[in-house]
């Protein structure tokens, strides 16, 4: 745990001294504010459903930009040699990268809490779907960040890492689209792989353990594969 703390501190320092984090945060919060104002004036309904779906789409597009540098940059700058020849298990290196990026994504999401506060101040929102929505976002951040770190571990070029992560996210998003064309039981596999299929119920207040399991299992699998990849010597 001591090594994880040392590595995490270094990663957070690297992330929060990089212009990428601030650029992504600005884009994220700008688009989110615009969407919130627009939907609130258009629907006059005190909920955050639109915001959660907007955050889902923005996460698909922007998380790859945040995670792309994780391990790809270490490889390109060859600093990975310093890490891998120090007495540190690969799993701590991957976990530190993952946690630092997760902190950043959750910090971005926390910017949207101001909208919940506005709804509470001027209306009487149903809090169940709002808490469910934030749970869904936390689970989404866990999975997307883990996959982002995995694709970053596979590539030396950051753009390739980002493109790879975006590709995986989009494939997961639309995984259920191919279900009608697949024989049983592959159709069920495709349906159950769908990212939006597990996000939407939670984001609208229907919290199921199976949805949590989806995010947790896929996220852990991605981190496991990233650790294996980093450990290839």
């Amino acid at each position, binding site marked *: 745990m001591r*090594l994880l703390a*040392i*590595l995490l501190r*270094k990663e957070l*320092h*690297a992330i929060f*001294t*990089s212009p990428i984090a601030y650029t992504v945060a600005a884009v994220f919060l700008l688009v989110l504010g615009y969407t919130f104002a627009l939907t609130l004036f258009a629907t006059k309904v005190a909920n955050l459903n639109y915001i959660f779906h907007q955050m889902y789409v923005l996460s698909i597009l922007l998380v790859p930009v945040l995670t792309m540098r994780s391990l790809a940059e270490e490889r390109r*700058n*060859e*600093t990975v*040699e*310093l*890490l*891998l*020849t*120090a*007495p*540190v*298990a690969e799993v701590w290196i991957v976990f530190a990268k993952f946690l630092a990026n997760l902190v950043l994504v959750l910090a971005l999401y926390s910017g949207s809490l101001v909208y919940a506060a506005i709804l509470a101040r001027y209306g009487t929102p149903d809090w169940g779907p709002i808490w469910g929505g934030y749970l869904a976002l936390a689970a989404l951040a866990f999975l997307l960040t883990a996959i982002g770190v995995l694709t970053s571990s596979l590539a030396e070029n950051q753009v390739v890492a980002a493109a790879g992560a975006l590709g995986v996210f989009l494939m997961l998003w639309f995984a259920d689209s191919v279900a009608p064309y697949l024989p049983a039981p592959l159709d069920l596999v495709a349906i159950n792989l769908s990212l939006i299929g597990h996000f939407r119920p939670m984001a609208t207040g229907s919290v199921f353990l199976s949805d949590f399991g989806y995010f947790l299992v896929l996220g852990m699998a991605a981190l496991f594969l990233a650790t294996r990849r980093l450990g290839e*010597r």
Partner: protein
Amino acid sequence: MTGPAIAANAVTRRFGPTIAVDRLDLQVARGEILGLLGPNGSGKTTLIRMIAGFLNPTEGSITVAGHDTVDDAMTTRRRIGYVPESVPLYRHMRVREFLAFMARLRGIEGGEVDAAIDRVAGSLALGEVIDKPIPALSRGYRQRVGIAQALVHDPEIVLLDEPANGLDPRQIIELRRTIQALAGRHTVVLSSHILSEVGRVADRVAIMLRGRLLGVRSVAETPDLEAWFLSLT
């Protein structure tokens, strides 16, 4: 403790069909400076990376102070300080921060970190730049910081891969003095393709070509290194 500091036993490393190091046997005594000499692509860097634990041998084994670099990797990595050829450094850090990070990563804790930094900063004359950002350093200082991170935990063994690359004549002289100062207290393996440089600092010279070890000789007992080198290659 008895036995060699480093022992390579019939070590082979393949990258796909390419054999980078071919059935190499080598022993390095404690406190010795061994120069690895050979043209680019002769396998020097691969051998050093295997000793450092960055790469695993495809066949054979390497022991560091009697510990296997694969089976007992954490123990061997604690005993080694390694400066890769490109001298990778974290660009978002200042020199002191970087050295503190590397020291903590190698198990130095609390007030000992500052003491270790002061020690290496003193011996490598880094006082002038210790609080400067790493991107602001000259090539010579970057090289010294690279060596400082390898020495910060006072390792038994120091591995230097092409340490004179890119340095001007004055910096090469300073580097030579630094390496000579390590003799006795540390076992040093350094690689180079410049025969005269290796001859000036090493106790023994090992010549590699196409992954094979062609010969090892004491510098003191080989008055004409150049003739010996030419006779082998």
